[in-house]
């Protein structure tokens, strides 16, 4: 297959070069059968960014059933309630297809946002990526 010319910073979805490329805001890699996603933006605030991220994550899990997705928040120092809504939407879609979602490496200030909204009860959150990866069934 021909090599795709990619704009600087964008990453093609692993294993499916015919799909639309993910926005430059996400860094996607594979660990066995788990999609590992890192956020390049430290601030997940802007509505347009949030929508694009949500779409890219949705596309990622739409490729097959029982998707395994890890979201690594190491780089994130701000997010808004709209971003939380996007994450819940991703979570709902993954649940629908019997997939698994984990969140990891969330900084204390951001973790507090999850706790105030009680979303720490909805998401499976781990302090480190390694612990999150080990938790997948």
């Amino acid at each position, binding site marked *: 297959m021909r090599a795709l010319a990619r704009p600087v910073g964008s990453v093609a979805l692993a294993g499916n070069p015919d799909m639309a490329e993910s926005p430059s805001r996400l860094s996607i890699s594979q660990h066995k059968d788990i999609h590992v996603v890192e956020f390049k933006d430290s601030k997940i605030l802007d509505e347009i960014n949030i929508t694009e991220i949500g779409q890219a994550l949705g596309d990622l899990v739409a490729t097959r059933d029982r998707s395994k997705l890890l979201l690594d928040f190491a780089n994130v120092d701000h997010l808004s309630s709209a971003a939380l809504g996007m994450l819940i939407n991703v979570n709902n879609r993954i649940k629908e297809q019997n997939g698994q979602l984990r969140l990891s490496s969330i900084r204390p200030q951001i973790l507090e946002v999850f706790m105030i909204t009680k*979303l720490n009860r909805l998401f499976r959150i781990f302090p480190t990526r390694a612990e999150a990866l080990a938790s997948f069934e």
Partner: protein
Amino acid sequence: MGGRNGRSGAKGGGSAGRGPAKRAAAAKPANGAANPGAGAAPLHRMTIASDFAAGRDVQTAILDDIERAGFSEEASFAIRLTLEEALINAIKHGNKLDPAKQVHVEYRVDPRTAEITIEDEGPGFDRAAIPDPTAQENLCRLHGRGILLMESYMSQVEWSRHGRRVRMVKHNQ
């Protein structure tokens, strides 16, 4: 934990948690005019269109002042998050992105306190009627957490003009 406090009724004026007398020095004058002679920080007023880019400019202006005033990392985080939520609420939910409607912002920042008031020109809403987003049955909902975050992170939050206007105070800690 960033200052949980301060929810009051929709009629406004009844702010909870009045602090020590020293905070009175940071209160804005009743007529809202800038009062540099008394040593109080200036009151800034601006009116913006109902679009996100204009909202972002307001955030930048306020956050620059916050940084210059030497606010703590924790208080700065709280203000940034709250501003995001409050401006999105005014622009998107209050004014419904209507170009004919504006958002009015007033703020004053001094080293001890930031005071921010945001008002939209929409129909308003009943604060008491907003469901609790932390209730089990609401956890999976995509929306409805902005006000909870504002009220959790600011030292005081007062709603008035049937929800169109919100006055928020954050003490630097």
